[in-house]
């Protein structure tokens, strides 16, 4: 699987798994999956499964990382060894370290860190099964886990990937929420996150080759899909307590 380049990733307006360009895969959200944690959530995008757990605000070690005025949001993104085709070495490597950094920065923008001087808010993003778009699935899970932990936030973070896939003639088309084949062979792969209420982009990473028009078109598609995911996040959070409210 995935060793040979497919002749096309999109044909007649349909992608390899039957989705239209603007469709996200089936998404599931499970709250409170790790009872030990102060907050936790599992987010499933098709075959991609990611769990985020939050511990904190708590004491920060090592001491030299302490920030006197606010809390430090730390993220540790890691993949389980068996989450991918070929066993991954245990523990985060360079790729995981970079992803951890950009996820932490995205989350720091929304967390009201001033409320907890000197503390750590630790977010562990663990990929259980990888089928592309793991960091964005993980960022949704992290946003939900932080809200679940009762940590004050300016907004939720909604995240997804978009990119460019070729058809049988080699023509590029923008699509959202890449799966593995599209990620491996596509012409562009963009990790994207927004804070919908703040109207800000919090994560943007890309490799590939797209024109400005294509990027804008993809972003518009992603923004639309993000609103759907935003609604799902809100529903999942409320479902934990809905019964008792008016």
């Amino acid at each position, binding site marked *: 699987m995935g060793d040979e380049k497919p002749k096309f990733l999109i044909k007649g307006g349909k992608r390899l798994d039957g989705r239209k360009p603007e469709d996200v895969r089936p998404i599931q959200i499970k709250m409170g999956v790790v009872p030990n944690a102060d907050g936790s959530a599992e987010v499933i995008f098709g075959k991609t499964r990611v769990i985020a757990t939050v511990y904190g605000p708590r*004491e920060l070690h090592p001491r030299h990382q302490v920030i006197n005025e606010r809390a430090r949001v730390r993220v540790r993104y890691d993949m389980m060894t068996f989450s991918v085709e070929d066993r991954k070495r245990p523990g985060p490597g360079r790729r995981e370290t970079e992803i951890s950094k950009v996820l932490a920065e995205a989350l720091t923008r929304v967390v009201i860190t001033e409320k907890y001087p000197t*503390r750590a808010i630790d977010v562990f993003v663990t990929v259980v099964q990888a089928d592309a778009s793991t960091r964005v699935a993980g960022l949704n899970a992290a946003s939900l886990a932080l809200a679940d932990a009762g940590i*004050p*936030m*300016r907004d939720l973070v909604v995240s997804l990937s978009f990119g460019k896939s070729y058809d049988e003639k080699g023509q590029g088309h923008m699509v959202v929420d890449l799966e593995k084949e599209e990620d491996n062979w596509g012409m562009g792969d963009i990790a994207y996150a927004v804070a919908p209420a703040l109207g800000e982009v919090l994560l943007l990473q890309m490799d590939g080759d797209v024109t400005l028009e294509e990027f804008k078109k993809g972003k518009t598609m992603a923004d639309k899909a993000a609103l759907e995911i935003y609604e799902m996040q*809100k529903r999942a*959070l409320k479902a934990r307590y809905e019964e008792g409210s008016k």
Partner: protein
Amino acid sequence: MSENVENRQLVVPGKILAKGMEFLPGDGAYRDQDEIRASVLGLVNFKGRAIKVIPLNGKYLPKRDDPVIGIITEVGYNSWNLDINATYTARMLVGDASDRYIDTNRHKLASVFGVGDAVICQIKKVDENMAVFVTARGPGLRKVHDGKLVYVNAAKIPRIIGKGASMVKMIKEYTETRMFVGQNGIVWIQGGNEELAEKAVLKIEAEAHLVGLTDKMEQFLSKESGKTINRDEPKPEPEAVAEGTEEKKEEGE
């Protein structure tokens, strides 16, 4: 009420609670230019011009004068460190341990409070760097020697106490226990039917967001204890006030 949300509505972070300068953001809310937004997952609560959101989860953030229960984690030369089940740990200075004078040259501090001891105490001071100091000097403040500690989500403590301490009184009546409810989510129970009291506390924690909890708990306690308590006076919980506002004291922000 604002045009955006109703009292007791369940909201998520980022939700607009009110527009314009008419309202002020309380705990669990923040101002973003001319809008007030929720910052936590919780229930909206209007109090005059203030809008706050009562969180449904979260760790205890130490506040001056709050009664808490701490567990000694370290004995120092002239102070103790305590785990107060919170976002910050606490320190107790030797002068705050007891009304009587403790001479650090002659007494080992561990003989006053040792590692693992549970102490009912009070937050004495939270300084600008969030260093938290507690005291064990004051009525009812002391080390506990028996009974059991029950850990609950600190966000649920106001419900366990109930309006005017009605809920905790009711549990004590039915179970004939002594109880102390720390704002930090640790409840001490001693004597009588400790097991039933623990069950009751955990049941309130699980169902804290539901309406009509007081009646439900009365039925539960009555059934489990096989006791009936006549209530000649009207129920201590005035029905006119919305539920979810049962904080021990109003927070001054």
